[in-house]
């Protein structure tokens, strides 16, 4: 337990000092996205890596948070600090209601149902033009403001987003080491055995689905207020798959793994600019290679690889 806290403290200090190390405007902007994607990957990981329940529609919850925040602060001129929790509660509530029937499904059927859910949300963003602005998007979303500081630059946004991301990480780390976290992992390994021991699997799955949606919604709101513009293209099926890739590549059931996966998949496109149209092929290839050669994800695979290299060096 003490070791966990030390690791988290070191990690937080590293995150907070990072802007000093990598100054340079454009990179800061990318690192803001790393933070948002880390939150999203953790949200999906709580559901997939811990409880073992897949969702191919998480981009939808991300989008709902972004649009609700955007609409409430533009059309209804609400304060962003009120709009964000309001959006999160609404999305959590919606996920809870939808979760009850669809989490009865297992495996491929649950994948199909969540896929459908994501697509429906995406269509709503596109078609309810008077509300969302349709395909051309929703502009003019205000920046967040705290104690006179307006979060309108990349460096300020970096601290804003990473403040939230670190809080989500700590929250999730606590959860994973608790009786609830253990029960979720138990459901993952054998739902029937967990039930026999008194775990209300059905309720717990719905709770974690709703929590996962709430975190995704929060990430969406933060995205809307830092970008000041949202459009449906950011919340499509492709992005749900990208989130899934982050979680699997980073390591299922590992909070730091989600950070690694989100970092890799956010930075990778920057390095793959030249191969622009082929990035989805590269993602697919990466996912296949990871599943074949590093099924535990980067967070477990890298230490193994490192030990192998050290051993080889020792032999030669």
């Amino acid at each position, binding site marked *: 337990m003490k070791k966990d806290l030390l690791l988290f403290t070191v990690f937080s200090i590293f995150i907070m000092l990072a802007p000093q190390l990598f100054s340079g405007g454009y990179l800061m902007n990318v690192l803001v996205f790393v933070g948002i994607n880390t939150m999203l990957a953790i949200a999906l990981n709580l559901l997939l890596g811990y409880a073992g329940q897949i969702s191919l529609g998480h981009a939808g919850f991300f989008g709902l948070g972004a649009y609700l925040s955007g609409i409430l602060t533009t059309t209804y001129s609400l304060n962003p600090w009120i709009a964000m929790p309001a959006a999160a509660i609404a999305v959590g509530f919606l996920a809870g209601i939808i979760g009850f029937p669809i989490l009865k499904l297992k495996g491929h059927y649950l994948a199909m149902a969540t896929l459908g859910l994501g697509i429906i949300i995406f269509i709503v963003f596109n078609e309810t033009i008077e509300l969302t602005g349709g395909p051309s998007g929703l502009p003019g979303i205000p920046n967040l403001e705290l104690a006179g500081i307006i979060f309108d630059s990349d460096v300020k946004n970096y601290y804003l987003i990473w403040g939230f991301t670190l809080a989500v990480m700590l*929250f*999730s780390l*606590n*959860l994973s080491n*608790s*009786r*609830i*976290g*253990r*029960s979720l*992992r*138990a459901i*993952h*390994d*054998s739902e*029937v*055995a*967990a*039930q*026999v*021991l*008194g*775990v*209300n*699997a059905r309720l*717990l799955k719905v*709770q*974690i689905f709703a*929590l996962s949606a709430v975190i995704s919604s929060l990430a969406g709101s933060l995205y809307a207020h830092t970008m000041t513009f949202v459009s449906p293209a950011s919340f499509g099926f492709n992005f749900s798959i990208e989130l899934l890739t982050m979680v699997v590549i980073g390591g299922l*059931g590992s909070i730091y793994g989600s950070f690694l996966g989100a970092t890799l998949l956010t930075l990778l496109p920057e390095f793959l600019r030249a191969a622009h149209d082929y990035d989805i092929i590269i993602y697919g290839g990466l996912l296949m290679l990871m599943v074949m050669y590093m099924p535990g994800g980067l967070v477990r695979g890298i230490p193994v690889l490192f030990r192998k290299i050290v051993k080889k060096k020792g032999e030669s």
Partner: protein
Amino acid sequence: MLEVSAITQIFGGVTALDSVSFSIKKGDITGVIGPNGAGKTTLFNIISGIYQQSAGTVLLEGKDVTGLPPEKLARLAMVRTFQNIELFGAMTVLENVMVGMHTKSSSGLLACALKMPWTISEERRIRNGAIKWLEFTGIIDLADHTAGSLPFGKGRLLEIARALAVEPRIILMDEPAAGLNSQETLGLAQLIKRIRDLGITVVLVEHDMELVMDICDRIVVLNLGKKLMEGTPREIQESPEVIAAYLGDDD
């Protein structure tokens, strides 16, 4: 303790159980035996709330628990183990037993995530409780191993330790000796007697006749979905009907 009356289960057109009734006395070790396909596991799945029966009722300590889901039965102090041990393979041995303490703890999702002060003391209580049951079953030295890496016999003991952590008043064991060698089976017999000595009522489905005859106070024999007879191990061994059911009739 447990009263089963007129349980009938029909799968499609097949009658797996046909109006089976018996009652189990508090503090006894009761064996449910019968040839393959007699309906033993189906009966267990119904009593433990995994299947819904077509007809019949189950009374637990006088209370009608017919159709209650397994998680509710755990709160009423009834727990079971599985024929093909159902461990949480990716978790450690200690964590497996800690899940067994679920009904004995109450911190909710948000309290755990925010690490409220009371969750910390509860966590300590859960850990200590789990350690106690690992000591009871003699696998405390494996506490930090991954459950999925255990040999089968140890896995069986872990499953029992995990079930005991629920602090049941009745435990159902589905073929606890299946897959164990003779040494392990002897250890299991001792363990089951020690569980009974804790005041826990034990019901087991078992094929190992030596074990059943050695430890059971009473035996219920099923054949082709019906109760063939019920009695002490001695009565069962001497019954021509039971012998016929197992060895086949000459006619």
